[in-house]
């Protein structure tokens, strides 16, 4: 059963309007049909969780049609706003493989036999990005010989930068859900509760609390809820939880992820499991000060490089620059839209965040900061969904910024 869009829903997104905006840009660029393949493109248009390899065909006018793996097509049709005729499947059957199904649809159903076709290509740190593979590109090109292929992912990237009201509300909700995970984790750890507890167990305690609060997934590709304890906190910014036991006298980093209507809650919080040494406390105080400084400077008009500069100046003044990882944020959008900030793919290093990208009101990022002294076996991470405002920013997770010592 197709989902009916309700403009009165606080989480409403005008998906048909998004399609029309894309089609307007296609028209301006002389593009006859758009073949999308990235996860972020599916989320942005379908407003449904689309984990299997999918292709969305956007005609010059009218509704798009998605082709997904046959095992998931009916579920996807039940969750998206597109009607049954516009949610199709591919399968390992004669005439129904990915290439045949998609190209037959373009040629026969849409009646487009030649012209300019947009596709999505590039490179990402994110394995699941979903750019068209070389094999796919080659086969599609052979099956659509009359077409000129135009890499046009920036159409959707540009349109998706500024978040609408419904998207922002979803992120607020996802962030409050993450806070429930942190509350549950803290309650489980305190008063000696951490003793004998592993990283995986605390990850699961938070996951249960977040699920009870409405999260449907610990969406993160790098280990769901990421946890590091002891020396692992100094290993960098990707720490899938292990069976290591949390121990007294060590730092602990909890990076929880929730998903609410494809919006991605993401908040990292740190503790010192007592007793903490003065040196550990010094590191912890440095990190909290750095995070607060960066948060105080997010606003429309700032850029990733200006914020990094402010952060490093602060770190230098506190004598902790050697432990501060340069860079303060990564991009964020609906499921699949992570890492790169902005739509520009031709910055100084192609397909990486343009350091001079200028933030605008209602843009969102994850403020993501990492502090590490591997030789001392200590590190911290901060992540939080941030909404850029004209003056300042809205920090969406309300869990208090601090590094407490808990016993």
């Amino acid at each position, binding site marked *: 059963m197709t989902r009916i869009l309700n403009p009165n829903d606080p989480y409403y997104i005008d998906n048909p309007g998004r399609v029309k905006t894309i089609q307007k840009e296609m028209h301006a660029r002389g593009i006859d049909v758009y073949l999308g393949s990235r996860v972020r493109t599916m989320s942005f248009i379908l407003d449904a969780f689309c984990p299997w390899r999918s292709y969305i065909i956007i005609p010059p006018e009218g509704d798009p049609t998605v082709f997904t793996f*046959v095992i998931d*097509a*009916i579920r996807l*049709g039940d969750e998206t706003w597109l009607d*049954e*005729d516009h*949610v*199709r*499947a*591919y*399968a*390992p*059957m*004669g*005439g*129904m493989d990915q290439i*045949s*199904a998609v190209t*037959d649809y373009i040629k*026969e159903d849409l009646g487009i036999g030649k012209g300019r076709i947009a596709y999505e290509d590039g490179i990402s740190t994110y394995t699941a990005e979903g750019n068209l593979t070389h094999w796919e590109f080659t086969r599609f090109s052979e099956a659509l010989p009359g077409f000129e292929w135009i890499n046009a992912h920036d159409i959707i990237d540009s349109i998706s930068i500024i978040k609408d009201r419904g998207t922002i509300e979803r992120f607020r909700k996802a962030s409050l859900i993450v806070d429930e995970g942190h509350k549950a984790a803290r309650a489980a750890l305190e008063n000696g509760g951490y003793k004998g507890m592993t990283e995986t167990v605390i990850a699961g305690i938070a996951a249960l609390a977040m699920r009870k609060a409405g999260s449907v997934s610990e969406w993160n590709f790098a280990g769901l809820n990421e946890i590091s304890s002891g020396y692992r906190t100094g290993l960098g910014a990707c720490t899938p939880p292990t069976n290591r036991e949390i121990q007294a006298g060590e730092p602990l980093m909890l990076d929880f992820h929730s998903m609410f209507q494809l919006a991605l809650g993401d908040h990292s919080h740190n503790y010192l499991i007592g007793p903490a040494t003065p040196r550990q406390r010094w590191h912890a105080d440095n990190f909290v000060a750095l995070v607060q400084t960066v948060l105080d400077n997010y606003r429309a008009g700032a850029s990733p490089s200006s914020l990094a500069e402010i952060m490093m100046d602060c770190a230098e003044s506190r004598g902790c620059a050697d432990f501060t990882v340069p860079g303060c944020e990564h991009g964020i959008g609906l499921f699949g839209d992570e890492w790169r900030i902005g739509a520009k793919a031709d910055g100084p290093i192609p397909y990486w965040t343009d350091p001079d990208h200028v933030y605008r009101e209602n843009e969102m990022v994850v403020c993501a900061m990492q502090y590490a002294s591997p030789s001392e076996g200590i590190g911290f991470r901060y992540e939080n969904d941030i909404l850029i405002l004209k003056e300042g920013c809205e920090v969406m997770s309300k869990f208090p910024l601090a590094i407490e010592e808990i016993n």
Partner: protein
Amino acid sequence: MSETYAYLSTEWRDEALRRLQAELPPEKMNNITTSMSNIYKNCPGDAEKFLMIECIDGKVTRVETGEGDAPDAEFRISGDYETFAKISRAELGSQKALFTGKLKLKGNMAKALKLASLADRINKVLSQIPTKY
């Protein structure tokens, strides 16, 4: 001894309609409305043939056979005459024929998935018709 019908002949078509209506009441067809054209390639005598079956609210309302262009239908399945004949003789499963590319399906695969069991029921009835290929 029962009568034998030439495959896809008008007599075979009429017998197919009679049997489908008798053996597949609307509730057994899940009260669906759909249609399917099978396109037979490489037929004896070279002409391309078709078999079209239409179902309205679960009732099989129409079975058409003939040569040349097939009537429009929600699903279009094409393949060699011999492949269809093997399916009708129950020597080959229709799903295996699709999965090995011997048959090609056109239409909304997501919808087709819901109809797979119904197509099997239809094929089972058709396979019971005493047929000369």
